[in-house]
């Protein structure tokens, strides 16, 4: 039986089987990916290194057999597959889609915010025209809506089953779905021992794609990173998700297991200055820091060369709209010192550099290197590890960390989407408290604009130009998502949501 069972190790805990529930953590999203279907999905493409990735430019049907966009782009009509059935045999209908979308926009929290990114904000927008036809009305056309329908949030739930378990206090059956997924996806949850493992077993009747090759997938949670490495290296597990960069480099060099590293789209590891703090309000100080950061050392010693350098760009005026792209800074202590001297803080100052305990594996060496380098331009840095629970509060909600390491990445792969979250005042990931009227205006104008709109490219370039000049966020590098697998394991595909999609995986018989 071992031949059609795939064993995956991860370091994180799956805490719910329902992505819509509040409190559900990121690792749990994989259940939505593997056990539920969405209306749409992306096709895939082969990257330069030969590995597979989803293709942002290639929308494909999943539950929807076909879809139509109205002239004005404000009405989307989907035809549901005839043969699509939930696990209990009930056909998937437009009513299920409506119920699920209603649920996502009503429950609040993350699912609602993510739906809103696609301009999907209230139940009235969704209509089940008939059993197999589903319609969405948009307040305005948006290039983000269709991609947003591929996210793990936009899943379709078996509404009949859910309604049976709904109560007055809990009209959306969160308690039930939390433990009992009810989907139509390629895998069902066979067993879930919270904190230990999750076992998927194949849904042989899956209609929305080729039936997976693998019968069972066991996701084992192993908190110790070195144990995970030992397990994959000794061949006791097939697949290790999200391995540290160092392991990726060494395992690849050793050649016993396959390592795939994919630069994470629309994601940056950045050093954020917080403009609420006096020294950082001075652009010169920010630039001085950007010139003092030891990019090379960080890339080699913290990222182990995995990822894409984001320093040493050619010009301060970007030519392309590619995002992320290297900023034109690199370590130049003379310049840094000169800028410091010019600034109002010639004598330097003291500041704590904070990072998330959960990100320590790259953030800690990075922070140490930055600490040492900034010391040389007179900025005395102390390090501050913030435990996970507190991180989101102090960094993102209160935005009270003067200097910190951040790693936001947007799911939807457009620069304006990134800018929306990270550079617009008040938005969650703008932990710098950066406030620039022009960027805010540009983002507002561009966010829903189609990419082939003539104003799109200049707008984007302008945003990037301002970001380069103002540097509230100093990009360090674009990180990679690293995974390791046995030689007999194949079919791995990178996804923007960074969850393991187990559906295409294969296992060579040995």
């Amino acid at each position, binding site marked *: 039986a071992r031949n059609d069972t795939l064993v995956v190790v991860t370091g994180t805990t799956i805490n719910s089987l329902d992505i819509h529930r509040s409190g559900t953590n990121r690792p749990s999203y994989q259940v939505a990916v593997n056990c539920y279907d969405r209306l749409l999905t992306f096709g895939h493409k082969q990257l330069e290194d030969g590995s597979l990735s989803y293709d942002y430019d290639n929308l494909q049907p999943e539950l929807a057999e076909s879809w139509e966009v109205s002239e004005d782009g404000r009405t989307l009509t989907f035809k549901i597959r005839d043969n699509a059935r939930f696990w209990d045999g009930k056909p998937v209908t437009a009513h299920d889609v409506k119920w699920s979308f209603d649920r996502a926009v009503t429950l609040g929290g993350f699912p609602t915010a993510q739906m809103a990114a696609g301009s999907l904000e209230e139940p009235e927008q969704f209509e089940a025209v008939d059993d197999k036809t589903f319609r969405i009305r948009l307040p305005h056309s948006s290039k983000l809506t269709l991609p947003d329908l591929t996210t793990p949030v936009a899943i379709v739930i078996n509404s009949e089953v859910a309604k049976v378990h709904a109560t007055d206090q809990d009209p959306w059956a969160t308690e039930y779905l939390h433990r009992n997924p009810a989907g139509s996806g390629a895998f069902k949850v066979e067993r879930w021992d919270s904190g230990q493992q999750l076992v998927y077993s194949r849904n042989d009747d899956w209609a929305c794609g080729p039936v997976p090759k693998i019968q069972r997938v066991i996701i084992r949670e192993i908190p110790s990173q*070195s144990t995970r490495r030992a397990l994959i290296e000794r061949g006791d597990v097939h697949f290790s998700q999200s391995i540290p960069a160092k392991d990726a480099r060494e395992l690849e060099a050793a050649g016993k297991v396959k390592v795939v590293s994919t630069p994470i789209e629309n994601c940056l590891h950045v050093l954020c200055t917080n403009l609420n703090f006096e020294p950082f309000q001075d652009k010169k100080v920010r630039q001085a820091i950007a010139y003092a950061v030891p990019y090379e050392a960080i890339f080699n*010693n913290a990222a182990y060369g995995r990822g894409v350098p984001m320093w040493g760009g050619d010009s301060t005026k970007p030519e392309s709209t590619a995002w992320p792209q290297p900023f034109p800074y690199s370590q130049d202590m003379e310049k840094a010192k000169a800028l410091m001297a010019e600034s109002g803080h010639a004598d330097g100052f003291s500041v704590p550099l904070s990072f998330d305990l959960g990100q320590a594996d790259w953030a800690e060496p990075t922070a140490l290197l930055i600490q040492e380098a900034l010391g040389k331009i007179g900025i005395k840095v102390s390090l501050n590890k913030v435990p996970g629970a507190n991180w989101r509060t102090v960094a993102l909600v209160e935005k009270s960390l003067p200097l910190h390491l951040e790693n936001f990445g947007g799911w939807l792969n457009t620069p304006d989407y990134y800018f929306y979250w990270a550079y617009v005042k008040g938005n969650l990931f703008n932990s710098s408290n950066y406030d620039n009227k022009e960027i805010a205006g540009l983002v507002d104008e561009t966010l829903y604009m189609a990419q082939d709109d003539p104003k799109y490219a200049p707008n984007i370039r302008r945003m990037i130009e301002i970001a380069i000049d103002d540097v509230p966020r100093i990009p360090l590098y674009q990180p990679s998502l690293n995974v390791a697998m046995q030689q007999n394991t194949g079919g791995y595909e990178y996804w923007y949501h960074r969850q393991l999609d187990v559906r295409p995986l294969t296992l060579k018989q040995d």
Partner: protein
Amino acid sequence: MSLSSVKNFARHARYVMTENPVTALAALLFLLIVIAAVAGPALVPYDPMATDGSRALQSPSWDHWFGTDHLGRDVFSRVVVATRLDLMISLAAVAMAFVIGSAMGAVAGYFGGWADRITGRLLDTIMAFPLFVLAMGVVAAAGNTIENIVYATAIINLPFYARMARAEVNIRRNAGFVQAARLSGNGDWRILAQHIFPNTLPPMMVQISLNMGWAILNAAGLSFIGLGVRPPTPEWGIMVAEGANFIVSGEWWLAFFPGVALMLAVFTFNLLGDGLRDLVDPQRRT
């Protein structure tokens, strides 16, 4: 203290050591640790904080006796320099626990009654927490500064001293020499402080030395779960904890040397206990 009593004490110390070779070994190691703590920063060949990407993760060699870590820092220098901090953490934590704990215990044991009952329940409450978890809680709640680590360690060590002091004082509170002290016009507090308490010291010494070792381990454990001393301060526990992730990839020296240092220190403290007791026990004097 007169010269002769100093001499006497030295003779006694020598005797204690010759009688028990393990104590002598422990004393030697302790001396080594103290030297490293006092003179460490002056002795080491490299700046323990200086990173250098070009020499990251080198295995032990002539230049770097204990190798270098992932940021190219010299492990030997870091291990030596860490001695001071570790020694300070354990000394401070144990001193605090000892002073407060034994005072509480002594009062409870001597006066009995309500004082005793309240202290007893308080200690039971502390003891009912798995101690390491309590330390975690305190540090998590108050923040992981060195002071908080010391406080947390002191809190979890406190019950041991309190209980011990209570028991030791209790068996002596009606001893003949205490009655005699009363007749001599000593008040309760003076009797407790001058007559009874010093007599409880020998068994406490063993506890102190055990706890010193334990305090270091505790700090190391906190580091392992990410609540310990903040980087880049060199501290054995955090070095082992960080180095642990490198064991499987073959960079054993990262965890090994600080681990050995940690072990040696704890080991020394533990072994020192019996010797210390013999040293402060007048009964053993000749």
